[in-house]
C-alpha cells in the first residue's frame, strides 16, 4: 500500500519545479536564433521527407522534431531544426530549401522559431 508523501516533501518539490522554471526562463535568450521551423506542403508521394532531410543533412542541420500528416489530400510536414552547426549561412540554407521545393513541386516555408514563440507564448 502506498502512502501519501509528507506535505513538506511536496512543498519541497514544488519549490524545485519553480526553480527549474526560472532557470529555463533565464536561458531562453541564449538559445534563441539557433532553431528554425520548416513547413513542407505538397502532393503526397514517396520520398518527400527523404529529399528535404538530404538537403538538411548535407548542410549539417540537425532535425529535432518532425510532425507529419495528410491534410485535405496534401502532405503537410512541420520540422523543428537546430542550425547551430550549419555549414552555410542561414540565408543560404533557406534559399537551398526553397530551391529544392521548386524542383520537387513542394511549397517549403522556412522561419526562425522565435516568431512562433513570440506570437503564441505570453
Amino acid at each position, binding site marked *: 500500500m502506498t502512502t501519501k508523501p509528507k506535505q513538506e516533501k511536496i512543498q519541497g518539490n514544488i519549490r524545485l519545479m519553480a526553480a527549474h522554471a526560472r532557470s529555463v526562463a533565464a536561458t531562453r535568450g541564449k538559445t534563441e536564433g539557433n532553431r528554425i*521551423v520548416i*513547413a513542407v506542403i505538397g502532393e503526397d508521394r514517396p520520398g518527400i521527407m527523404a529529399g528535404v532531410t538530404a538537403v538538411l543533412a548535407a548542410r549539417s542541420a540537425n532535425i529535432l*522534431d518532425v*510532425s507529419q*500528416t495528410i491534410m485535405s489530400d496534401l502532405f503537410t510536414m*512541420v520540422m*523543428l531544426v537546430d542550425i547551430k552547426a550549419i555549414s552555410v549561412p*542561414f*540565408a543560404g540554407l*533557406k534559399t537551398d530549401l526553397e530551391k529544392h521545393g521548386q524542383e520537387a513541386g513542394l511549397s517549403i*516555408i*522556412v*522561419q*526562425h*522559431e*522565435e*516568431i*512562433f*514563440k*513570440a*506570437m*503564441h*507564448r505570453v
Partner: protein
Amino acid sequence: MAISSEEIYETLGMIHAQNLDIRTVTMGVDLHDCAGPDIRRVARNAYDKVMRMAGKLVPTAEAVAGEYGIPIVNKRVAVTPVAWVAAACETRDYTLIARELDRAARELGIDFIGGFSALVQKDMTPAGEALIRCIPRALAETSRLCASVNIGTTKAGINMDAVGLMGQMIKEAASLSADTSGSACARLVVFCNAVEDNPFMAGAFLGAGEGDGSLSVGISGPGTIRAVVQAMGRELDLQTVAEEIKRVAFKITRAGELVGRKCATRMGVAFNIIDLSLAPTPAPGDSVADILEALGLDKVGSPGTTAALALLNDAVKRGGAMATSHAGGMSGAFIPVSEDATMARRVAEGALTLEKLEAMTAVCSVGLDMVIVPGDTTPETISGIIADEAAIGMINKKTTAVRLIPAPGKSVGDTIDFGGLLGGGPVMPVSPHSCAVFIRRGGRIPAPLQGLSN
C-alpha cells in the same frame, strides 16, 4: 514548452493566406544638429545624416523579414520637423531641403521620408509659415517626401489662420500635380494632436523629445482579424467576438515587436514604439471595412458602423497593449477610403458618406484619410472640413487628421486610381453650402476645458 503544429499552422495561415505583414519599419532621424544659416549647407547636412543613420535600413529589414518569414511592406524614415531645422536659414524657400531629403530616400531605396512638417497649433513662427507655403512646390518636386502640419491640440486650441492657409495649400498642391489627379495631396496630412513618434505616412515626423535615432514599427493585419471574425459566424455575442479580436491582436503585435526589436538591435539604435494600428491596403481581403461587415453590417456606412468600429478599435488596443510595453504612434484602426478596396466600393455605391466617415473618426484613428473630393471644392470648404476634424480631435483628446485630394477637373461620378498602396476610389460629394465667412474670421478657437487637465 514546444510550439505545437496547430500553432505553426495558425501563423502560416495568418502570413500566407490572410496578408499578415509588418506594414512599416520607420527609422527616426533627428536633424536638429543640421541647422545653420546657409540652406545649401543645411540640406547637405540633412542628406548626409539620413544617409549615415538609415544606410542599413533596407538591407536590415529585408534580412529580418527573410529570417522570420514575415514580409515588411514599407521601409521609411521620419525626421525632425523641417520648420525647426530650417528656422535659422537666411532664405525662406525650403524646397532645397525637400529635394535633398527626397534624394536620400531614393538612394536608400526606402518608400517614404516624412517630416517636411510644421507644428503651428497655437501660432506660426516665420519659419513655420514659410514651410507651409513651400509644401505644394516641395511635394511637386519630389516623389517620396511627405509633409504634415499640426494645426490644433487639446491644450492649445485650433489655429484657424493655419487652417485657412492649409485649405489653400491643399488646393495648390493638387493643381501642381493635376496631371496625376492631385496625387501630391496623398503625401500631405493636416493634424490635430499630432503624435511625435508616428511611424505611418504621410504624417510621420520625429518630435522634439525623441532621441538621435530610433526605430518604430507599424503593424498591419486587417485580413487576419477579418478571418477570425468571419470564422466565428453570425450568432456569437459581441463580448465573445471582442475577446477573440483581442487575442489575434496580441499575436500580431508580438510578431511586430519581435521584428522591430531585431531590426533596431542590428542597426544599433533604440527600439522606439510599436503602433497598434490596423492599416488596410487595396489588396483583396486586406480591408478594415471587411472586418466591420464580418461583424454583421451589410455595408459599411449603415447604422451600427460607428459602434462596430469602436468595438474593433478597442479590442485591438487591448490585445496589443498586453503584447508590448511600448505602444505608441496612432494605435487605432485606419479608415483611408482609397487604400481600402471595400471602403472605396461602399462609397461608390452611396452606402458610405463623408458625414458618416467623419462620425467614424471620433472613435478610431485617424481621420478623413485619402478622401477624394471634387476639383472645384473651394479652399474655404476644405478648411471647414479640416476644422471639423480638428474639433473632434481637440474635444476628444485624440489625434485626428485630414488627407483630402481635391482632384483637379474631376467631379462626383469620376473614379481615380493612384496605384500602389495609395489605391483609388470615387470622387465623394461635399456639401455645397459655404463656410467661407467662418473660415475667413481667422484667429484661434480657444483651448477647450478638456485641456485643463492639471
